[in-house]
């Protein structure tokens, strides 16, 4: 039961940190789910997050797995509501207000000022993830190749992540 309470607390807090994208919450998610509550290891978190990049829909669905591991199917549902509920309500009410504030001069200032901060939070998330993942020249080469291909073409990223799985299997599999 107190696992459920902890899941609600952690994921509703992480919810409001997702400024710019789910990745912005990653550094804090690592601290809370791995170091504080021991629901999973950092390696498992990285694996789940990466698998979540292939799944369709909003790219943070991997959180349901953390909830399920910690407290079964109830945990999964609780985590979903805790993580998406607060920001959904905020979007609902602020969205209605925001449309009405079209003429308010600070509206542009807020949009303009928050966008570099959001990019910074995403970059910090990238760094946190990359430090756990890039551990040699092969992983560096895979990450670099995906980055370059995506910046130069319009290929669906899901194919590249699957190609990464094949490359990883060939490079790291030791039976």
């Amino acid at each position, binding site marked *: 039961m107190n696992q459920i309470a902890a899941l609600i607390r952690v994921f509703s807090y992480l919810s409001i940190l997702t400024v*710019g994208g789910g990745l912005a919450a990653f550094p804090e998610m690592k601290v809370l789910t791995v170091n504080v509550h021991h629901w999973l290891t950092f390696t498992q978190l990285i694996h789940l997050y990466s698998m979540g990049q292939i799944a369709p*829909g909003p790219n943070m669905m991997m959180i349901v797995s953390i909830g399920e591991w910690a407290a079964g199917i109830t945990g999964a549902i609780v985590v979903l509501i805790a993580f998406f509920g607060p920001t959904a309500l905020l979007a609902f009410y602020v969205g209605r207000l925001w449309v009405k504030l079209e003429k308010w001069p600070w509206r542009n200032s807020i949009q303009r000022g928050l966008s570099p901060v959001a990019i910074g939070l*995403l970059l910090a998330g990238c760094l946190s993830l990359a430090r756990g993942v890039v551990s040699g020249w092969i992983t560096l080469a*895979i990450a670099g190749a995906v980055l370059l291909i995506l910046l130069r073409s319009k290929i669906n990223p*899901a194919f590249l992540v699957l190609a990464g799985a094949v*490359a990883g299997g060939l490079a790291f599999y*030791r039976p």
Partner: protein
Amino acid sequence: MSDASAKSAVEPALPAVSASGDIGVAAIFLEFLFIGATSFGGGVVAYLRIGLVTKRGWLDDQKFVEYLAISQSLPGLNATNMAVLVGDRLRGFFGALAAIVGICLPGAVLMLIAGSLYHSHGNEPLVTAMLKGVAAAAVGLILATTIQLGRKSLAHVYDLIFVGLTVFGVDRLHQSVPRVLIAVGILAILWYHPRTISEASR
């Protein structure tokens, strides 16, 4: 709903948009469920545009971009914020609820299955090896997404300073995200206060 009818009286909306009162909760749920199930490889926003603007004509491009701007400045994922805003416009509270549940459901079920498979087979050497490759590819992917987003929204050298301050605060000083968000966010908003923006656009 009175909100929407008042608005359509003011602005001569496109035919498809003025018909928004007829779009049922079930139709909204199904369209978002479809988007949630087919938007492989991230970039859900592109799939949303195809589904909502091009295919259904539920809103026009201008409205879509406006909602996207709101979604990006609020906490929450762009995909779910967009679902809430568009669902609300089409059918009020229940439209928003149908949209967000629809877009989340397929991915959530899929990750539930993938997560328990990983839990039981994650230690097998081949799986570990493949996941190492997947994680490396994911790093490239999120970095590319961040760079593409940055190219679109960073216009000034000051923006880079705010980006740098944010990264420094979270990554080097190990400050919590809310603290950095509030400190650098307020600084950046004040920097772009209404007078600066109107001077820059002159």
